[in-house]
């Protein structure tokens, strides 16, 4: 069980990592318009925060601050890319 300052620190690190991942994703997969940017930014930051620990454990990264930031960053990048892929697939599908 984490103490309150530890939980707060962990949350700050996860948020910073998720924002870092979302912003660095723009370099490789820029959105097409502003509404897509806000949608993907929101989803990837939330996913980054939620799945930071899962991503860190999956890669076997250390359970320190660096590991948490890296995990959140990785989860955010995956969410950003995944949402773009879903949008492309749903955009190319047309009902007959």
């Amino acid at each position: 069980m984490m103490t309150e300052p530890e939980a707060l620190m962990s949350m700050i690190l996860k948020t910073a990592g998720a924002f870092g991942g979302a912003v660095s994703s723009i370099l490789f997969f820029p959105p097409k318009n502003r509404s897509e940017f806000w949608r993907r930014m929101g989803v990837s930051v939330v996913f980054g925060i939620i799945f930071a620990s899962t991503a860190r454990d999956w890669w076997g990264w250390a359970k320190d601050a660096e590991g948490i930031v890296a995990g959140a960053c990785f989860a955010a990048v995956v969410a950003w890319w995944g949402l773009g892929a879903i949008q492309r697939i749903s955009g190319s599908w047309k009902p007959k």
Partner: protein
Amino acid sequence: MHWYQWALVAGAVFALWASWGTPRAKWWIAAGAGCFVVSSMWHDARFPHGEVFGAVLNAGIVILLYCKATRRWEMRLWNCFQLMILLDALYYFGMIPTHFMFAVSLEAANWLALIVISGAGLAEKARKNGMYPGRNFGSLLDPIFRALHAKRSHPPFWYQ
């Protein structure tokens, strides 16, 4: 300086000559050269995390290109700098095992960027010298020119 660094300087000078008169080309060459010189100085000074520093500099150029590019050749140049960031990240995470392999792959990406700029410049020079459709090599040159100098397909996302 090593021979491969001199070769890259010669390549940059050729690209500058080839693209003289092509809008923004000299600024992209200057940005790439500046990034190369500063990251080399960082490496020679034996400061830590050279690949992270290089990736940050390349990320700056990627952002500049995304904001200011108007032609397709500039978007291909954008892809070259994205490749350089990817190589920095792969080396940082140990997926490129040796420094030699990292240096060679980064050098190849630099040459690719110079080839894109030179190609765009030479295509424009050829067109200015009368090689337009139906004349000389015009029929051959025209698709190349269009591929390089057509407008970029998507403007920056904040304009949409």
